[in-house]
């Protein structure tokens, strides 16, 4: 300690440090890839993009969208259940989704890594409303049924963690639940009306599509000004 104390003083070391990243009045561009977390039968991975504008340092408004269409994957588990139990489970595939969101950042902090370097992070909650386009995958009568994609009202809520590499670039991991009323395939075939679209679906089911979203955040403009001096 004496050796440390003997070193020359640097006048630009401050007792109170400023917050590392000011987000207020900046845009956040967040490209990500999402993975399905809760559907054993069909996976709906998708690339996505979010754009947020921070009204204050902790509150943002924004939009995000996911493009699922070419990426829906029928899992082996679906086949095994059908073969073993002879039970057909109605399936849906997704086309796209878009939502208007609010983001709130209640927690931020910093970690010392290996007692050698420091990095900053924040945790946020996000929620919003939008739309999702889905359709049933015909399982009961695939020869006659070919439903079109339909758009449904969708709500979403999630939590996320952002780790900052510098003042404008961060890694983001988020878990978000997209909730909507999905139209399911009719488990019965109406004799003589196999081609009638109105008989292809019957009940709706409140569906949770929980997905992990992993990506990066780019804050624009890259630089910012502190309101008060150090």
């Amino acid at each position, binding site marked *: *300690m004496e050796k*440390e104390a003997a*070193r*020359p*003083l*640097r006048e630009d*070391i401050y007792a109170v*440090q*400023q917050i*590392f990243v000011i987000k207020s009045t900046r845009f956040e561009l967040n490209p990500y890839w999402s993975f399905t*977390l*809760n559907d*054993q039968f069909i996976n709906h991975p998708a690339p996505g993009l979010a754009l947020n504008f921070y009204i204050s340092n902790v509150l943002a408004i924004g939009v995000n969208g996911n493009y699922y269409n070419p990426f829906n994957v029928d899992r082996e*588990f679906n086949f*095994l*259940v059908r*073969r*073993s*139990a*002879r*039970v057909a*489970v109605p399936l849906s595939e997704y086309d796209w989704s878009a939502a208007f969101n609010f983001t709130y950042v*209640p*927690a*931020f*902090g*910093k*970690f*010392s*890594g*290996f*007692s*050698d*370097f*420091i990095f900053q992070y924040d*945790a946020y909650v996000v929620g919003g409303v939008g739309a999702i386009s889905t359709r049933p995958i015909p399982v009961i009568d695939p020869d006659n049924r070919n439903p079109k994609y339909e758009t449904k009202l969708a709500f979403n809520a999630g939590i996320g963690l952002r780790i900052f590499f510098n003042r404008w670039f961060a890694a983001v991991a988020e878990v978000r639940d997209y909730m909507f009323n999905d139209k399911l395939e009719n488990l019965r075939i109406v004799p003589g009306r196999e081609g009638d679209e109105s008989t292809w679906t019957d009940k709706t089911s409140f569906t949770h599509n929980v997905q992990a979203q992993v990506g990066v955040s780019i804050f*624009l*403009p*890259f*630089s*910012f*000004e*502190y309101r008060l*001096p*150090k």
Partner: protein
Amino acid sequence: MNTTKAKITKCLLSLLAAGAAFLAAPERASAQEILLTGPLAGASSVRHLRLYRERRFEIAPAVTFTLLDEYQRTILLGARLTYNFTDWLGFGVWGAYGGAIQLPTHLTDEIQKVNRVRRTEDPTTTNRRLTAVQLGDNFEDQLAGMDWVVAPQITLVPFRGKIALFQSIYVDTDLYFFGGPAFVGLKERAECEANACSTPESFDMASRMAIAPTFGLGLSFYMSKWSALGFEWRGLPFSWNTGGFDTAGGGKDNNYPDTAISDADRRFHFNQMLTVSFNVYLPTQYRVSE
């Protein structure tokens, strides 16, 4: 045509220029720059760090919830006991009992709903014949379960920091990784020979122990000198027959049912779970770094 191309090029260039101008706003203030010289040069990133772990025991009663289960969810009740040699290295064991709380999923309810109706039909119907090996009277009774887990493990704590909640509550926290072997007590549908697996007795359950790697990461939020709240994610991958089905053992590449229940019917599952714990540290007083 050339005029159109020129217009498009001009338009694109204008957009690029506008974007560049937008992004190139001058940086007039800076803070917390890394000081490569002066009194902080070469110094550790934190001074007077509260060493919550060093040379302390951690006793952590914990509740663990399995995730993404196909047929049955398990809530395991247990505890983690760790001795931390340093603030970044510990060795301990996690043990939990899962036999008490096992809850069927919606899929299980749906399968049993169909099964119940099917059991009233003539045994010679196609559905009855094709599921004779697969489904007993009650589907829930043939589901595999994780009865207990014991996992000795090494804990590494590379990240230590703090978190500010609502800019008013400040909590010390650490992020740790752990790994080791796990011994898992399983209850699974008992093995039976081909063509002998459709009797009621063939749906009896048997116990076995699986040995698997386990690993994960967790966060500790220190509430006092001797206590913390912990959240942990754990992976525990191994093969087991979760539904008690005959799915393999016959046909090409053994990928088809063979009317027997055997280890060929076990499928690889990347089992995942979340743990919430209340951590108590002994002795109750922590050390402080230089």
